[in-house]
């Protein structure tokens, strides 16, 4: 390590007192950021392991559940995030080259990408809530009031997906066409072979379950019809968990990027000091990268 004597008059404003040189400070920050990103990967790592275990135990519910995801919107979001990573990388270069105007523009575009991603995600979530697909036990609760009690069969005769709405006691047969009615093959999948014995059967026939079970009453929801594989709620639970945690990271990224934008507007960053832009960029790339794994795992396979 090269050593420059630490005299106060040689310290630029951004150099903190316990560092000797700007290079030392930059390298410390960069190493710290990489370690932090390693913890982020491990945080999501637990969820990826959970995904693998669930998918291994219940392959049929992943097949059935993913039908409900809108691949086009997912692909749109993937494209948006990749574009925002490109603008972020360009922003770092602009900071290094002292180009303030382009830096501000590129950071703004990156923020716009992040916001777009969350808006699309909002529409995806609300659409599912509208269909009664909630996370947790609420999935099995009857919606309040008796008006729009959802009943559904997953696969119709044409091989598409539809839902039948039951209005009050009078069945009002109405096909809800999904925007992206999938060309999925009929999913009459046998219960999981690997899962705990009898589980799938239990879920299909609520009457057989022990009376003292907390969850028994929830399983009588009409969504649990015989054509629908058991435990499909678990697909949505892990979907909400992983995309939700990722969404939180995107929201945090908007905060970081906005802070960088303010700094850029004040002219804090330049070729001598671009550490925050560089490190913020690293964070943003990792958030992007995690989505690049989430998209195929949920939407495509």
């Amino acid at each position, binding site marked *: *390590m090269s*050593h420059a*004597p*630490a005299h106060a008059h040689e310290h630029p404003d951004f150099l*903190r*007192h*316990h*560092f*000797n040189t700007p290079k*030392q400070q930059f*390298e*410390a920050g960069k*190493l*710290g950021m990489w*370690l*932090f990103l*390693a*913890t*982020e990967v*491990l*945080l*999501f*790592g*637990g*969820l990826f*392991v*959970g995904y693998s*275990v*669930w998918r291994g*135990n*219940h392959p049929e*519910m992943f097949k059935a559940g993913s039908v409900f995801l809108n691949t086009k919107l997912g692909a749109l979001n993937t494209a948006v995030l990749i574009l925002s990573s490109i603008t972020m990388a360009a922003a770092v270069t602009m900071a290094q080259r002292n180009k303030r105007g382009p830096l501000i523009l590129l950071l703004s575009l990156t923020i716009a990408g992040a916001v777009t991603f969350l808006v699309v995600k909002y529409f995806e979530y609300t659409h599912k809530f509208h269909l009664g697909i909630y*996370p*947790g*036990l*609420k999935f099995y609760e009857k919606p309040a009031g008796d008006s729009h009690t959802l009943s559904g069969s997953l696969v119709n005769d044409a091989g598409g997906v539809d839902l039948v709405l039951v209005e009050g006691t009078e069945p009002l047969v109405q096909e809800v066409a999904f925007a992206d009615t999938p060309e999925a093959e009929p999913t009459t999948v046998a219960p999981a072979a690997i*899962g*705990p014995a009898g*589980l*799938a059967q*239990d*879920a299909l026939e609520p009457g057989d379950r022990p009376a003292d*079970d*907390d*969850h028994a009453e929830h399983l009588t929801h009409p969504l649990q019809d015989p054509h629908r594989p*058991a*435990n499909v*709620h*678990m697909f949505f*639970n*892990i979907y909400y*968990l992983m995309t939700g*945690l990722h969404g939180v990271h995107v929201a945090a990224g908007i905060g970081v990027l906005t802070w960088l934008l303010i700094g850029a507007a004040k002219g804090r960053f330049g070729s001598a000091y671009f550490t925050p832009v560089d490190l913020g960029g690293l964070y943003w790339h990792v958030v992007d990268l995690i989505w690049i794994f989430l998209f195929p795992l949920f939407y495509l396979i």
Partner: protein
Amino acid sequence: MTTIDVTKPMQPEAGRPAQGTNYLNHTTGIMSWLLTMDHKRIGVMYLVSILTSFFLAGIFGLLVRTELIAPGRTIMDADAYNIMFTLHGAIMVFLVIIPSVPASLGNFVLPIMLGAKDVAFPRLNLFSYYLWVTGAIFAVAAIIFGGVDTGWTLYVPYSTTGTEMNGIIFLSMAVFVLGFSSIFTGLNFIVTIHRLRPPGMTWFKMPLFLWAIYATGIIQVMATPVIGITVLLLIVERAFGIGIFDASLGGDPVLFQHFFWFYSHPAVYIMILPGMGIISELISVHSHKHIFGYRFIAFSSVAIALFGFIVWGHHMFVSSQSPLMNVLFSAITFSVSIPSAVKIFNWLATLYKGSISLNTPMLYALSFIFLFTIGGLTGLHLGTLATDIHLHDTYFVVAHFHYVMMGGAIIALIGGIHHWWPKITGRMYSEFWGRIACGLVFVGFNIAFFTQFVMGAKGMPRRYWDYTDQYRIYHVVSTVGSYIMAIGFFITAAYLIHSLFRGRKAPANPWGGRSLEWQCSSPPPAENFPEPPHVGDCYDYSVLEWDEQEQGYHWRRDIPHPVGEA
């Protein structure tokens, strides 16, 4: 370039406000502590907070032992007992032992030992202290809003559908927040050691304590996020019933155990490695002899950290895990004993023909070697598949981990506090009372916990509130031992607090240490070193001599000062 003069306390830098000369008095007022970025003050705040938690959890432990002194109800009913041992375990593990050495003593001495002015990210350091405080508040909230009775492991389904108590979510949040406090501390120390070493301080000139802290940092960064996501899942599971760990919803309860131990086994090494680092310093300094096998001790710390990641399954031999996994985990578990034994033998070789001073820190170090060896060797009984089935969930396990966690980590912490007390506070404590208290703790500890090995081997299950008469004598002896140990700790608290007010002023180097923290005054100045200090062999004591008048060590007058020494 000037060199630190070890014979005199350093003079304050020119231009510094003339309020004081050391980190304790260079600024004043409560806010100068609460918002400080100084690693030394943050270390002291951690130390006070952690010792307060230690006192609290110790009281819970004594209540548990008191309840068990006789079969049936003694002082509390079974539900209260469940809450009591859960809190004892959870607070001791998450609030005390995991942060204890790195966050308090590590924070204080790491930058000074390195010759740096501060840790790499002082603001993050303060932030992680307040995360610790937040975690402590959540843990207290868990007591107030309903209690937790699952044991510190929070196993499902106890923690999801098995209990009516509502403290689970609070305790889980506490674990989550404390985890991030631990991550940021570890991250900070790794970066500090990589990037802030002054010229001349190469990896193999670092004191072994720093190698231990470095290895600990790796585990903190790489394992803790997994417990973070696990308790997050537990919170969602309990609040919404997502079913990931709930078999009745298609989930997998054993998955929780895998997640939990993927962190909590490496966490055992987060607890013990810094303690081993302290012992490496104490043994060498107080026997005034160069450490034996420096590189072996250094690399054994890293080896323990790495092996620690791949042995978690040995907590789950009876959990329906596959027999093949059991065999593999058992085999890898045995391999961890190699680097641990490397340390023990090197410490013993360091003591051999050393000029041993039986100071209080040294007594704690010797206690550590004795207790950790027992704790480590009984770990082999538990790592063996056949014996584990008999010993699983008995008091044998309780005794084993108390020998390692308490006889190891806590004893090392207390030894380290005594070793660096003169440096931290600038005062000397009563050596006489220090030795008495150490003796009481050592004797009381062995009475309390060796009995539990016997009781466990005879079949007494852990966590039981009631027992048959055949175990009564062991419970009585164990409880008496815990009281003796408690008396030792209360004496320790008394003379340490007394020394703050009445203690003799400490010299810069009371023990004859050679690492850099003994080269600055006691207590150190706010900036540690105005210029990066020169680095020598931190275990070469031949250059120091005792000064009767100063009651401390200084550089020998008959050999030249280490100007230009590298």
